[in-house]
């Protein structure tokens, strides 16, 4: 076995509670070197909290349990100085709103320089050259001159490019991109997704793309995990999950998307709303909104079960149906 077959990052039973209210219920997830994983889900599903918890970025009052293994080393409970090396150095994160993540009173050179000095130990002229190379890489025209500019002198799309340059400054093995294009216009979103693909091809880094937009995730990611109410409910290769979603929630999400071509159909709408984490329903959290729910669904929380290589789902009905279909194929 070579080292590269080990996962780069492995989350084990990661859970988060705020003031005794559990919002993340034991997430198990692996990121392999160089792969792209999409995390989809609606607001409050826990997709961002998962990574904020993994990187120790949640406020003190959050109770985090489980393990976050980076190349086998547990980051939960690691010393703050160790986390400082990991954050930005091994795992970088970018967010929805680049303007508020950049310091408005410092030039781009200063901000990029800070990251380069911290994570790469560069100084003086090396910083200038490397900062320019990074701006070139992310497609900021006239990089040399623009290094002396301030964030407000750039457009939203350019600021997100600069954030990506800053994330790349530490040559991370994993980029966690949390809704990186949500605040951008459609044509600019296309540019940024394109850029992320180019950067990944050139650096070979892995990426976790957190998004509510199924289309964006489907186009960008090798694998996808669908989250609902603090749990992963379905996971698998993107093409499989989007062509043949198994969990009723994943099916509903995909059916809720209006088609851009072909005949119009009534949208599948999922009735009701997301449960309140302070008052979770018994058993499967999706059962109150699920059209197929049976009494068994409310009896116990379904576990995420592997039904085929790399394909996991947390729904007793979906797992049962897969098993039946599988048996029919065997008999045929």
């Amino acid at each position: 076995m070579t080292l590269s077959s080990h996962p780069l990052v492995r989350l084990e039973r990661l859970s988060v509670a705020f003031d005794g209210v559990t919002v993340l219920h034991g997430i198990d997830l692996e990121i392999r070197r160089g792969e792209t994983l999409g995390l989809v889900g609606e607001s409050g599903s826990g997709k961002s909290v998962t990574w904020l918890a993994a990187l120790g970025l949640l406020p003190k009052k959050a109770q985090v349990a489980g393990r976050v293994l980076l190349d086998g080393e547990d980051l939960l409970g690691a010393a703050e100085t160790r986390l400082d090396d990991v954050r930005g150095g091994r795992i970088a994160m970018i967010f929805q709103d680049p303007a508020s993540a950049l310091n408005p009173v410092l030039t781009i050179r200063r901000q990029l320089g800070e990251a380069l000095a911290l994570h790469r130990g560069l100084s003086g002229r090396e910083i200038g050259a490397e900062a320019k190379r990074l701006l070139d890489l992310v497609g900021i025209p006239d990089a040399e001159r623009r290094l002396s500019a301030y964030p407000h002198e750039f457009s939203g799309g350019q600021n997100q490019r600069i954030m990506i340059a800053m994330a790349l400054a530490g040559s991370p093995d994993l980029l966690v991109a949390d809704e990186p294009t949500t605040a951008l216009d459609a044509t600019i979103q296309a540019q940024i997704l394109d850029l992320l693909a180019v950067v990944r091809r050139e650096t070979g880094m892995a990426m976790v793309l957190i998004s509510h937009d199924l289309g964006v995730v489907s186009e960008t990611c090798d694998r996808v995990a669908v989250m609902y109410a603090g749990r992963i409910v379905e996971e698998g290769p993107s093409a499989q999950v989007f062509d043949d979603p198994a969990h009723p929630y994943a099916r509903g999400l995909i059916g809720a998307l209006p088609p851009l071509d072909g005949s119009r159909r009534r949208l599948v709408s999922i009735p009701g709303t997301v449960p309140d984490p302070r008052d979770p329903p018994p058993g499967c959290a999706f059962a109150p909104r699920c059209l197929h729910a049976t009494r068994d669904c409310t009896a116990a929380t379904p576990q995420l079960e592997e039904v085929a290589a790399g394909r996991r789902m947390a729904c007793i009905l979906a797992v049962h149906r897969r098993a039946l279909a599988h048996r029919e194929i065997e008999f045929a």
Partner: protein
Amino acid sequence: MTAPLVSVDGIARHYAMRRGLLGRPVEIRAVDGVSFTLSAGETLGIVGESGSGKSTTGRVVLGLEPADAGSVAFDGAAMPAAGTATWRRQRARMQMIFQDPLGALDRRLPIAPQVREPLDIHEIGDEKARAARVADLLDRVGLSADHGRRFPHELSGGQRQRAVLARALATKPDFLVCDEPISALDVSIQAQVVNLLVDLQADLGLAMLFISHDLRVVRQVSRRVAVMYLGRIVEEGDADDLFARPVHPYTRALVSAAPTPGRRMADRVVLVGDPPDPADRPSGCAFHPRCPMAMSRCREVEPRLTEVAPGRRAACLLVDAAAAEPREGAR
């Protein structure tokens, strides 16, 4: 042919904006010569990115902002001046809903009295009739009487938008302007509200101006679609046909930029450059600096919105030239 319910003729809206503390005021043409008509019961979708003028268009059409040029006619008569008694009466027949339902509702009042408010203002029906109408409206948008007794913060985002919709429908309007009505909602809730809008539109015969940046949603609710870029309509036509066979290079880029589940990023048209600055409108065709097909003429000549096929209008010199020349196998 019946007369259109809403007829918008060359409306323009200009703002003066100051760049920096000492900068000279620059004129911004947020909307610059937009024309369209809307028949009773018809839905026109307007798509465009930020700064395209789509929201301003909606506000000018309703008279919430004055037009600096052009005119809007409703039901065959020119729109009365804003603030006058006739305008207020007219406004009962045209309503608007916005992106942020929490901002549109009064946080200190339960839902039911807010839905009832337009009936009080326009003095429609007596006490009993108003109460019955409110119950009917809540039911219509899928809210219970119990929801009516709650305060806005006690409802979810989707429920709040339903409440706003119930209030907009209280005066039985003929015309509804929806400005990004579902953009703030989660995907599964978006579908609920879209289905509701489609049903209401069909049942009540509403004419609708549906403004959104989301091509999918616009196609779902609209029969016709207009694409705006820097204050102008650059393409307009049947919704299905326009998205299947976009003619204008900008529409093509927009359609190609819409991510589709199950499709890998392949030969997408990725536009170069940033979104345009309304304060610094390029000469000629405003889209030419980002257009992959721009010719030198595009820098000088402003393309006009012309009919390029039955029911399809586009403002692009390439298309215009093709229409004027003998057909060479194209189309």
